[in-house]
């Protein structure tokens, strides 16, 4: 087996075994990080690989969360709620893809931003469906008959399983010709079209798939917290995902992992410094951008430089603008 494969097996084994020994809070943070990795992978596909600006990732996330929560209230199985949430997110991702065909970058930022605000306001005001500002509590964790994932450890493993599915599917997509087409669009849209890449189809797909991943993340997020309210899906949240993807490394496969880890775990690590932790975090973000504007994945590259094989150029050579 190649070194990469060993590394993967090891990572997988570690991620299953190690967390089981952690205390409840640390396990929660780790579970949350996994959920955010899923979300970040989605945004990285849309923004990092295909170059389409999406500032409404939190809105797509909310579709997953609320689908699971609302359907759960009516006794529907979690997995069905998840599928519904992903489908709704996918559909809205397609819808958001259409402006991407017509308007230039900064307008796309505006449109997606506007969409985020719209969804937030709808969530807050459609009380009969979403519970308004109060949200929905007691979101049930999945259960397969007698096998319940209610315990934190069991649910962590459940999230891990779905995360593995997401990572595998993202890897498959991004190393395929689709991934190449996305990157071509990001690098030179006009040329891409002239060599046969249908901008329309691929831009819509970039949005839709990214949104679907977000929906999946949202669906897992709801039972992790146990309750949801519109405040979790504001513009701030979308910006948080943006930070993850840029800090980690846009358009790089490892980016979302690094980014989600840093954005989720760093504030926790700093928590000991009392009120200063947010200030230190903010300074850290600024410094990271100043010194590693292409993302922390640069450090990762340095560590692996000598052993980097060129067998998968479409991943390792993908670097953001």
């Amino acid at each position, binding site marked *: 087996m190649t070194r990469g494969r060993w590394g993967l097996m090891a990572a997988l084994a570690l991620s299953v075994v190690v967390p089981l020994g952690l205390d409840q809070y640390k396990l929660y943070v780790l579970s949350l990080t996994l959920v955010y990795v899923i979300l970040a992978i989605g945004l990285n596909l849309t923004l990092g690989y295909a170059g389409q600006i999406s500032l409404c990732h939190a809105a797509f996330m909310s579709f997953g969360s609320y689908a699971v929560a609302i359907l759960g209230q009516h006794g529907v199985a979690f997995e069905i709620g998840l599928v519904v949430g992903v489908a709704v997110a996918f559909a809205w991702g397609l819808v958001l893809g259409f402006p991407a065909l017509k308007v230039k970058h900064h307008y796309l930022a505006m449109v997606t931003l506007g969409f985020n605000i719209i969804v937030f306001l709808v969530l807050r005001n459609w009380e009969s469906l979403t519970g308004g500002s109060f949200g929905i509590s007691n979101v049930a964790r999945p259960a397969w008959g007698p096998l319940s994932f209610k315990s934190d450890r069991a649910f962590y493993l459940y999230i891990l399983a779905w995360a593995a599915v997401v990572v595998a599917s993202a890897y498959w997509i991004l190393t*395929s010709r689709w991934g*190449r087409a996305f*990157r*071509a669009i990001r*690098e030179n849209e006009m040329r891409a079209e*002239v*060599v*046969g890449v249908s901008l329309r189809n691929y831009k819509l797909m970039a949005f839709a798939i990214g949104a679907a991943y977000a929906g999946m993340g949202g669906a897992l997020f709801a039972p992790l917290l146990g309750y949801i309210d519109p405040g979790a899906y504001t513009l701030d949240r979308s910006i948080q995902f943006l930070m993850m993807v840029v800090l980690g490394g846009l358009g790089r496969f490892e980016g979302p992992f690094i980014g989600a880890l840093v954005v989720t775990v760093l504030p926790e690590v700093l928590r000991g410094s009392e009120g200063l932790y947010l200030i230190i975090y903010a300074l850290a973000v600024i410094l990271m951008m100043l010194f590693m504007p292409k993302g922390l994945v640069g450090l990762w590259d340095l560590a692996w430089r000598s052993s980097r094989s060129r067998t998968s*150029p479409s991943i390792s050579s993908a670097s953001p603008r």
Partner: protein
Amino acid sequence: MALLEIENLTKHFFRLSALSRVSLSVEPGELLGVIGPNGSGKTTLFNCVTGVLRPSDGHVRFRGEDITGRTADTVYRRGIARTFQLIQLFPEMTVLENMLVAAQEKRGTLLSRLLRREEAETATRALVLLEFLGIAGLKESLASNLSYGQQKLLDFGMALMSDPQLILLDEPMAGVNPTMIKNLIGHILELNARGYTFVVIEHNMEVVMSLCRRIVVLSQGERIAEGTPAEIADNPLVLDAYFGR
């Protein structure tokens, strides 16, 4: 039947008329040259044919099918490929990846695409073309790291990936050293001999005169002359367009 028929093609930009009722046809297997002073509408012509711009009026027919106003990717899939005056590549992707992007949108069933059977064939084809052009050794280099001449060759290679029936070259010799020019001319002639049809925009008169058997001249968006290199060289209208006024 002509391979490409352009009929009364017109393109306005606000009040500027970039193309004015230009008509021409391209026969299969031809090597047609398009010349004219700067701003005569040559690149605009290419842009309108390939779907980068939408013509204001007129028609473009390829193998009998009306492709006027279709998107660029549709035109490409019909079999028309092109290169650009200002080199357009995918800078952060490798040479091989650049070639692969140009190949991928061809036929194949969904299943075969899912199973990626075509990937290997496409990669082989790309390597063969890169060999033909002499840049196979650079296949893992980033496109942005190539020299100008190498980028030109890559641009050319990308245009060949889909096995197009018509290849539009926009100033392929611009900024290229004499050795490379001979190189490129050689490639073009060899491909033409194999049956590929070319339309070439060029400023380099020597190249045009030696490469093309028929030449069309544009000036200020209009077609002003057509003929063999000898005829064009003597045509007073042509001389006027370049040197007069």
